[in-house]
């Protein structure tokens, strides 16, 4: 207990003496981990957005919300009679709204902002021949029908979303990896400076027989705390990404598929835990390197 108190006191004192460098290290960790988290969320969002294309559904015909019964009947007639259609599933306004409600259960304000009558009803269609060429041809046929707002093919839509999410999340990830490296170096330097500031004390400690770990632990703790505080600061950013950035795509009318661009409830918290683990690890590694290279114990 006494020893734990000693470690904490030494660590806090050391951080306080070296505040500006410590702040720089913590902020770098925060920025890099925020990028890591954002990248994870975009990836997850994309996976969820393409989830409607399941059980053989290759393309979706979105109707205009105000499409009339005749227009719907015409589409249905084609679907029922065409030999190239194996089956389909009609998602009416109410069902679309239900789905929307489930998808955004954790965002009541978003759900409140829409009503069933603005939801585009849609047909999720399973073709007999699933080759890309055939799907595209069918999609074009349906796109030309009156009352059809848009046809999203699995191939094209998924490729688009995949493309988008891969690019964005990879760019973020590369930036994040570089910054994580920078943060590790900054933590290393901060701990190195802390070691320098306590050179005399360390000398006396060795002289009177303090064990090597006893000397090392406060410094390693210091680095780990940098990492953890940085991670903690990155967590609110995840919520901003979730509530602002991803919500922006969800609310956009231009690409209906982006409606599903969301992460499940709890994902942000899971990601937060990963960031804390990652931040702690980066801090520990950075300080461990500093301790082994400069402490000579």
């Amino acid at each position, binding site marked *: 207990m006494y*020893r734990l108190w000693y470690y904490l006191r030494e660590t806090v004192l050391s951080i306080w003496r070296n505040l500006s460098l410590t702040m720089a290290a913590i902020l770098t960790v925060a920025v890099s981990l925020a990028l890591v988290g954002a990248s994870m969320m975009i990836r997850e969002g994309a996976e969820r957005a393409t989830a409607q294309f399941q059980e053989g559904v290759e393309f979706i015909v979105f109707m205009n919300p105000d499409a009339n019964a005749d227009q719907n009947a015409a589409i249905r007639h084609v679907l029922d009679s065409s030999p190239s259609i194996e089956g389909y599933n009609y998602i009416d306004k109410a069902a679309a709204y239900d789905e929307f409600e489930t998808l955004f259960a954790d965002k009541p304000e978003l759900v409140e902002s829409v009503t069933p009558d603005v939801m585009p009803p849609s047909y999720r269609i399973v073709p007999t021949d699933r080759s890309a060429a055939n799907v595209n041809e069918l999609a074009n046929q349906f796109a030309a029908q009156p009352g059809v707002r848009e046809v999203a093919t699995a191939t094209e839509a998924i490729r688009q979303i995949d493309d988008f999410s891969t690019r964005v999340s990879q760019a973020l990830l590369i930036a994040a990896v570089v910054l994580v490296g920078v943060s590790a170096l900054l933590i290393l330097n901060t701990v190195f400076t802390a070691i320098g500031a306590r050179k*005399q*004390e360390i000398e006396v400690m*060795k*002289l*009177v*027989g303090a*064990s*090597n770990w006893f000397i090392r632990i406060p410094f390693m703790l210091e680095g780990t705390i940098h990492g953890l505080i940085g991670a903690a600061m990155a967590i609110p950013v995840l919520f901003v990404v979730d509530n602002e950035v991803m919500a922006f795509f969800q609310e956009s009318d231009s690409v209906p598929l982006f409606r599903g661009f969301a992460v499940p409830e709890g994902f942000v918290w899971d990601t937060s835990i990963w960031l804390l683990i990652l931040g702690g690890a980066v801090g520990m590694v950075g300080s461990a390197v500093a301790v082994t290279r400069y402490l000579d114990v």
Partner: protein
Amino acid sequence: MIRLEGVSKVYKGDVTALREVSVEIQRGEFVFLVGPSGSGKSTFLRLLNREEVADAGQLMVAGKDIGALRSWKVPYLRREIGYVFQDYKLLSRKTVYENVAFGLEVIGRPRSVVRKQVPFILELVGLTPKAERFPGELSGGEQQRVSIARAFVNRPLILLADEPTGNLDPATSVGIMRLLDRINRSGTTVVMATHDRGIVDTMRRRVIELDRGVVVRDESRGVYE
């Protein structure tokens, strides 16, 4: 307590600090290490503390073979050895009390031991009234007393002192020597490197003289010469 057999130490650039030194020091002895600067006195002490590692020969300290000692065990060896320097090596940001307590805290002694031992040792070195002062507010002799208190607070078997009176005037030095003598009489083996002729000649203890890394004299009740 301390046994050196054919111990040699060569520094980089072929500087021989010690050449085949064989010495045995019994428990409870008081030994002066004398000799000109560069004769190997400090190296002798640093080898005992495992701050340096011998290049040849065997070194036993407090029953341990120092040459074969694993590096993680070195701290435990040092807990048996108090070390006092010419320049005291006190921590200027800590009070007298904290400096002495530091010697116990960092080897994980419980708070109850620290609270009991530190006042006791401060009383022994005569610094109880100055416990809350900082090293910068003390005279050289007082600072050396703090340093001795820190070295002795853990009751080591051996006390090594490297020119402990080197920065002090003769009158103050006598006080320091009385303190070291008292510590020695409590059963602690004391090995002290010194240039102080007056002290060596007055105390008449064992004298080991080094010259260019070789033991040239070893007398049981010697003088500085």
